[in-house]
Structures are given as C-alpha cells and as structure tokens.
C-alpha cells in the first residue's frame, strides 16, 4: 500500500502544512472567475445558469442593445437519432407552440443556435411547489393556491383547444410570480425531445417521474392525451396543497407500482385538505383516465365551483360512489348497529339517483336490514363483542356523516332522513348503554354530534356534546371529551357568554393534556385560538399571553395553522406576539411569562 493511501487527503490538499487554506482560497476564487464570464449563445450574452435537467440547460441571458432579459433553453446534445427529419418536426412543433398567446403561458420568442436553443420570455418567479410552500400557513392560503391552479388549468385548456398537449406538467414547469401570476413553461416539447436519445432512454432516470400518469409509465409519451395532462396537474395540486408528493416510492419499481395502482404513499390529502377539494384532486389523478375529468376545462370548472362554495362534480360522484361502496363493504357492520339509522343514511344518498333504480336498491337494502337485524340480535348475545362492533359502527357513522353532509345541506328531505338516522343510532345507544363502555359511547356520540353539525342541526348536536361532557367527567380523560368542551366553548363564545366559554376551554385544555390520545391538529389549532380569544375577552390577559406562548410547543402542523392568526390575535388584544417558527419547536427552556 502506498503511503499516500494511508492518509490520501493530507498530501493532496495540503493538510500536512498550511497550504490547505491557499487551496481553499483558490477553489473559491476559481468559481467566481468562471461565473464572471459565461460566454454567449447567438447574440445573447449569458448571465447565469438557471437550471440543468433531463432535457437540457436553461440560461438567463441578455440581448445587448435591447437589454431585454430572456430565458434560453438549450437542448441536450443532438444524437444520431435526432436526425434532420426529427429536427424539422421539432422545429415545426416549436412554431406551433410559439403561436400560443396566453397570459399564463410563457411566450416563445425564437429558435436559435441551429435549432438547439429556444429563446423565451424571462419570468421572475418561483416554481409552483416552492411558492405553495411559502404560502401555506398564511391567511387565505388555500384560496390563493386554488386561484393559481384554476388559471393554470384554464391556460392549459386554451392550449388543448389548439391541439397542443403539454406532456410534462410538473412543478418546475409552472412558475409563480410575486403577484401570484402563474406562467407555464415547456409546452409540447416533451414528445419530440423523447425522440432523441437521452439519458432517460439509455435506461436511467436522472429525475424521478413523480408526476407521470399510469398510461405514460406503461405506454410512453405517445400514448398520452388531454387526460394525462389533467392527471399531472392533479399530482402537482396534491403536492401544493399538502406539501407532500402523492407518490414517494423508495425505488423506481415501487413508485411505478404505486402510480399504476393509484396508491398514494401517505394520507396527507385526506388529513389536511377539505373533503370537496380532496375529491377534486382525487378525480383529477384517478388511475383510470376514463374516470378523470375529461377535459382541463372541466377541472378548471370544478375549481371555480369550489371557490364559490358550489357543489362540485367530483364531490357528487364521490358521494354516490362512497355510499354504494359503503353498503357493499359494511353489510355486517351496518346490521350490527341495527341500523335502521345507517341504512336510512344510505337510502338518503340513494335518493340522489333517479327513478326505478332507487326503488330497486331501496327494496334490496330493506331486505338486507331484515337479515342483518337477525344477525344483530345474535351478536348482542355475545357481550364484549358488541362493544367492538359498536366501535366499528362508529367509524361507519363518521364515514357516512362525511359523505352525506353536503347533500344534506341542500335538501330538507335528505336532512330529515339523516336526522332520523342519527336518532336511530341514539336509540340504539340508549338501549345498549349497559353493554358499552362510557368512552366508546362517547366516541359514538361524538360521531353523531359531528354528523348533526354537518347538516346544520346545532341544537341537536349540542345535546350530544353536553351528554359527552357529563359522562366524561366521571371517566378517564379522553380527546372526545376535550373536543366536546372545546365545541361548547366555541358555541358559548359565539353567543357572547365569555366567562362560560373560558370555563369550558380551561376544562377542555386540562382534559386534553391528561388524555393519552393525540388531538386532530386542525381542531386543536382552532380550539387554541378560540381559547386565547375567550381568555383575553374575559380579561384574563396573563393567562391568554401564556396560552399564546404555550402554543409554540405544539406540533408543526398546529404551529403552521396558527401562524397567520397569532399575530392578529395578539394585536387585537394587546398581547405580545411571540417569535414564531415553523421549523422547530422551541426548547423546553424557552422563556415563559
């Protein structure tokens, strides 16, 4: 073995003496020298390398004389396969794309450098995922994100209308300016570039095709259509709303499998995004392209309906699908609850279907009830098993409440069905009270109360929340009880009963801290804000200030949800807004008042 091998870096880098710092100085200096004079492409003077990717390099450049800044995309080395014919076709494609004129599509100026470089409008902005990361957590974040995506979808629809597919929609191809103006890059180039031999075709992905549709993965770019662009935009929307990629397979094979199966790697969408909006994303990125939005205009339309709080096409479809799937999946559970109640919920949903089909299904469901009631009777004889089934049924009620709430809001007939269904659940609960543990009964009541609130029956819900608190005071602390107290606190605050609200919040906070379960971050952040508001309004300024400081020790999700509101709340009540970081919880020794 050479002596150099024993300590190889000492000799090469001058660590044996003092020359290492000279080497480091030279290393820093050489980079500066290289960046000082980058050269030119055609008439354009290169100012900076902006990005380097699978298709080529993007430069920022300036045209001497006009001093206009432009972006120049210089494509990968031409290969033998990228012959004259392919090049001509590519240039024709570029001409078509260059004819697109839309405020949200980057304008192409010209093609230079023997067809290898495209000169485009320079956009000062951030890639849409980074922009969304900077927006999330601020007041009105969701509305800003949705508006940007609605415009992006409209712009892509405009291009589709001129027979131009994008084929490579991903965050780096959508820039957003400081004015929230979106600009889409690289329209229609992907197919032609795919004809050239690139690193990708040689068998390696230099990037990860997280936004590729199942049909793109399986059949290549020549099989993609309008719905593949819809899919890709859906994945980008998923990323921007949740901060997570929908598919994060550790290996390429796993990633492709997940995309094909439509199996997201996490539950970020359902846990952080309102149901209606999640339904839009899910429909856009459905693995079966026949079940996606048929056009980008349809997607833009649903985003607009969501903005106006109107029913979306995604949500209605999803509700009916969920209802049908629910009845199929939970036949036995439905019966365990006896479930006139749950069945009526199903029927209520079914009413949204037309004519004889409804009648036929309703009769079939009634037949099933008779069978399942018999099964229920037997199950009740089994004692503890009943409790388990009750817990499962609670999940069913929750699912159903979520499925049906939007429909119920719009139709009094459906609302009545739902009320009767929940009443049936309540009756069942009363009947079984000796067999069900208080915590389980409370969880069930919580599900029913939320269901009633979702259809606007706040008085009915309040009755359940109060029952939960009454029972909870004599049992183990639980999140359900803390939640009931927070809800009652909110109602009291809304009615101006400030001191009563404070009492509820204090008790709720004590129960939450004593409970071993974790609290839903959105519910917790809302409760925190209301509590601070109530304390301040009741004159408990020191306690409100302490609660404000304590909130910094909550989870990142809670801190993010609170970030926008804390300063405003502090200002409203003359409190001191604490330093607020989303990056890390303050240490345990953080100063407290």
């Amino acid at each position, binding site marked *: 073995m050479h002596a150099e091998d024993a300590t190889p*870096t000492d000799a090469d880098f001058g660590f044996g003496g003092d020359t290492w*710092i000279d080497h480091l100085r030279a290393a820093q200096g050489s980079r500066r020298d290289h960046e000082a004079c980058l050269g030119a492409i055609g008439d354009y003077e290169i100012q900076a390398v902006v990005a380097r990717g699978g298709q080529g390099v993007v430069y920022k450049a300036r045209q001497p004389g006009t001093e206009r800044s432009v972006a120049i995309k210089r494509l990968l080395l031409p290969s033998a396969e990228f012959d004259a014919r392919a090049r001509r076709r590519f240039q024709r494609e570029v001409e078509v794309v260059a004819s697109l004129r839309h405020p949200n599509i980057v304008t192409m100026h010209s093609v230079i450098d023997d067809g290898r470089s495209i000169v485009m409008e320079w956009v000062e902005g951030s890639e849409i995922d980074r922009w969304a990361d900077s927006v999330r957590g601020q007041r009105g974040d969701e509305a800003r994100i949705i508006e940007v995506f609605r415009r992006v979808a409209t712009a892509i629809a405009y291009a589709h209308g001129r027979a131009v597919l994008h084929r490579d929609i991903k965050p780096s191809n959508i820039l957003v300016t400081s004015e929230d103006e979106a600009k889409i890059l690289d329209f229609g180039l992907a197919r032609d570039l795919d004809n050239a031999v690139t690193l990708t075709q040689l068998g390696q992905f230099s990037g990860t095709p997280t936004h590729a549709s199942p049909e793109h993965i399986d059949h290549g770019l020549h099989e993609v259509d309008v719905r593949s662009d819809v899919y890709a935009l859906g994945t980008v929307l998923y990323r921007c709303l949740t901060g997570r990629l929908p598919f994060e397979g550790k290996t390429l094979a796993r990633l492709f499998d997940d995309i094909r199966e439509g199996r997201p790697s996490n539950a970020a969408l359902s846990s952080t995004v309102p149901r209606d909006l999640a339904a839009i994303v899910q429909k856009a990125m459905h693995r079966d392209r026949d079940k996606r939005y048929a056009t980008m205009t349809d997607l833009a339309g649903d985003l607009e309906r969501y903005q106006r709080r109107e029913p979306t096409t995604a949500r209605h479809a999803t509700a009916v699908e969920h209802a049908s799937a629910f009845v199929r999946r939970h036949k036995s559970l439905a019966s365990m609850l006896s479930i006139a109640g749950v069945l009526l919920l199903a029927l209520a949903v079914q009413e949204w279907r037309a004519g004889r089909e409804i009648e036929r299904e309703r009769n079939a469901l009634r037949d099933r009830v008779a069978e399942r009631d018999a099964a229920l009777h037997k199950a009740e004889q089994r004692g503890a098993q009943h409790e388990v089934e009750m817990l499962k049924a609670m999940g069913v009620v929750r699912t159903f409440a979520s499925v049906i709430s939007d429909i119920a809001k719009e139709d009094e007939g459906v609302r009545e069905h739902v009320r009767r269904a929940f009443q049936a659940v309540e009756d069942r609960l009363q009947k079984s009270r000796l067999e069900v543990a208080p915590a389980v009964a409370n969880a069930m009541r919580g599900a029913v109360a939320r269901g009633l609130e979702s259809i606007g029956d706040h008085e009915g819900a309040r009755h359940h929340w109060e029952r939960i608190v009454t029972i909870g005071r004599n049992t183990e602390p639980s999140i359900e009880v803390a939640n009931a107290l927070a809800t009652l606190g909110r109602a009291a605050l809304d009615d101006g009963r400030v001191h009563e609200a404070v009492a509820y919040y204090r008790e709720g906070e004590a129960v939450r801290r004593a409970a071993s379960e974790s609290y839903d971050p959105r519910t917790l952040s809302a409760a925190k804000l209301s509590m601070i508001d109530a304390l301040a309004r009741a004159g408990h300024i020191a306690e409100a200030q302490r609660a404000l400081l304590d909130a910094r020790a909550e989870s990142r999700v809670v801190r993010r949800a609170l970030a926008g509101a804390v300063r405003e709340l502090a200002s409203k009540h003359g409190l001191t807004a604490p330093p607020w970081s989303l990056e890390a919880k303050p240490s345990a020794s953080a100063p407290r008042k």
Partner: protein
Amino acid sequence: MAPSKDEPGTRATSDTPARRTSPTLLERLRAKDAHEAWARFEHEYADLVLAYCRRIGLQVVDAEDVWQATLLRLLGAVERFEYDPARGRFRSFLFVVVRSAVVAMQRRRASPASAVLEDSSAAASEGTGSDAESEAWEAEWRHFHLRRAFQALEAEVDARARRIFGDLLAGLDIDEVAARHGTTRAAVHKVKQRVRDRLRERIAAQVRHEDGES
C-alpha cells in the same frame, strides 16, 4: 472489453488502492435501480466537470455539452463494466471520460482548441491528456472537494467562527483578524485549526465515497 481510443479505459495508475471494503461510486451507479445514485452524482459532479472545462478555456455552453456527453459515456461505460475500480481511482477514470468528451466535442464543432488543448492533441487521442491537462484536472478535483466540504462545513460552525475564518480566507493575517474581532491570537488559531480538522475529515469521507473504503 478492451476500451477503444476515445472510450474510457482501465489503465492502472500509481494511486491504485490495494483493497476496498465498501462499494465505490461507480458500483453504486451500476447497482440495480440506481436512479438516486445517478441523480446525486449529476448534482455533485457537474461542478467538477464544468469547472475543469472552464479552466481549459471552454465557454459555458460547450462545458455543458461536455458534461452531457460525459454522462452518456459514463452510463455506457458503467453498463459495459469498462471500469475496474481495483485498478485505479475514480477521478482518473472520470478524467479519461471527460477528456474524450472534450476531444469529441471539438472535433464535431471543428472549432479552434484552446492553447492547452492544442498542446495536447496527441495525448488526447490516447485518452490520457497532457501533463497540463492532468494538472488542471487534479487542481479542479481538489477544488471540487474543498468547495463541497467547505459548503457543508459553513452550515455547521457558528456565526462568529464563520466570520473569523472568512477574514482569514480573505487574506487577513492572524493579528489583524484577532484585533478586528476583539479576541486573542490563540482563539483565532483555534478557529482555524477546527475548520482544518473538520475539512480534513469531510474530504477524507468524500474521497472514500468516491473510491470505496480501503
């Protein structure tokens, strides 16, 4: 497979490691499902190849072409097992690949070569490069590792130490730095020593990652 003139070779070098116990960078690139290793390689080593190309006088667009060609050639070489890590360091192998991409690019463009390249056309055709080119490559390889290590290090040291070392790097002597920061010569020495030790550790790790651990 015997390397062709312009293809990467397997020539043994004087810095041949005797044995290795961890996979080399090339072995990681060859591994099944190595897209992450490739992405990392592209991200990190573009700096070395582009800096070398600029050093020998290429414009940035030509340097980018060389880098793209290097990646393609490297990919082919990795798939064809043209590199035997037991017989030479990775940097020597990469230099041969880069050198050959530079020559091919210049032939295609038929443009006048820089002084260094004109001086070395004979050596270039053998894929080994002239002494001047080898020296340029070695210098850029050193700079590349120093920049990487220093960049990582900057995030680790506290702001005051960063300022003190920044002044040393800017060329101030120890007394000037000590006076400027209201501290002692010993304290400045300590900062310098700490940076040196950490750089040394980091660079050793980076080179081990490149060549495999001996």
